[in-house]
């Protein structure tokens, strides 16, 4: 018996038949849908490399049973840029040098997108460090990451404000 699953991934609705109901969202994304931007680091919810947005909330895809999220909207790193135009968070990571080897970067970026959307971090670097604490970086690019998230948060808030007043 296979299990049917519907997910909207980066805006595209997909119907997926799963043979094994125990597959994680991470393995589904990488092995089945070939969306390999989401990384497998520790595979136990400690490192955050597999962070994706599930219905707008950031979660570790390695700790999510795919079937448990039937009907959900999933955003992965592949869903952020519009064509060649990087998402403001991606652009800020480049501008602020928020990486070294880059392996944790997709998770860092997704986590930052989630953090900014939560609207609690504001522009206090300590709150950003707290909010990003679920994403480890073995190259320790933390100061660049914090700068990037701050810059992106400021830019996204300003842009939003301009749109409102325009």
């Amino acid at each position: 018996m296979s299990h049917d699953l519907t997910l909207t991934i980066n805006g595209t609705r997909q119907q997926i038949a799963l043979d094994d109901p125990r597959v994680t969202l991470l393995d589904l994304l990488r092995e089945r849908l070939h969306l390999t931007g989401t990384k497998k680091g520790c595979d136990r919810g400690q490192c955050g490399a597999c962070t994706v947005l599930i219905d707008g909330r950031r979660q570790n895809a390695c700790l999510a049973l795919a079937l448990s999220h039937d009907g959900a909207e999933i955003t992965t790193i592949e869903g952020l840029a519009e064509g060649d135009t990087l998402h403001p968070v991606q652009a800020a990571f480049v501008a602020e040098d928020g990486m070294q080897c880059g392996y944790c970067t997709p998770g860092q970026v997704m986590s930052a997108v989630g953090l900014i959307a939560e609207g609690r971090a504001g522009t206090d670097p300590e709150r950003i460090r707290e909010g990003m604490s679920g994403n480890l970086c073995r190259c320790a690019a933390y100061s660049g990451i914090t700068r990037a998230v701050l810059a992106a948060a400021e830019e996204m808030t300003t842009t939003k404000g301009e749109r409102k007043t325009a």
Partner: protein
Amino acid sequence: MSAWHRPASLTEAIGLLAEGGVVAAGCTDLFPATRRQALSGPVIDLTRVAEMRGISETRGGWRFGAAVRWSEVLSAALPPAFDGLKAAAREVGSVQIQNAGTLGGNLCNASPAADGVPGLLTLEAEVELAGPAGMRRLPLAAFLAGARRTALAPGEVLVAIHVPSHAAAGRGAFLKLGARRYLVISIAMVAARLVVKGGRIDRAAVAVGACGPVASRLPALEAALAGIAPEDAAAAVSEALVAPALAPIGDVRGDAEYRGVVAVELVRRALRGLAAEGMR
């Protein structure tokens, strides 16, 4: 081929549990605890069980569905008595974990370092259990039978956590000590709740976690705090009033003696924090 179930009602869930299987909710403890490549046996996902969802004010107090996630606790409109529970919610793993992990999972896994337990103990929480034999309620302290042990009978499930209205009074606080600031397992943690009337502590509830197989209240200290001014509370804390309730172990995170010392200091700081928040 393994089966997977996602019951929508408690009756359905209890029927499935009778046949056995792996109980899943937020999965944040389940996957790390699974040594094999995949979960074994049929999986019963409880996150859609209607009776296990949501936070609500009831006639008798507050009800938290067992499948309520930590981020839901953090964003809920709750009285200041729950400030300690909220502070704990903010320190359970990372935001990614808080968006998945559930209150019920935290209690059922029964880790000595479960962040939710001290706060719920100071809120006089009771657990609502359901199984083939029907429903029953237990005080949280009776539910937690030891390290990684609960009073859940075979086929039984934790449905909700209840905080009686008399315990939803006053203001709560929570402090956790780890080896670093964030994303850390507690070396020791403290929750406190004070009810102040006419400038004096009317009722005090203080609990310490990660300093014994289960978190525990400090009845001797609570008695000593009753009747004094909140700003004098921290000075009234002594090792003699704290230590008897604790049974700390030494492990990779800290030795037993260190835990004993920091527990006393954390209690002082929690009470000092509450006094500074203008409890009169």
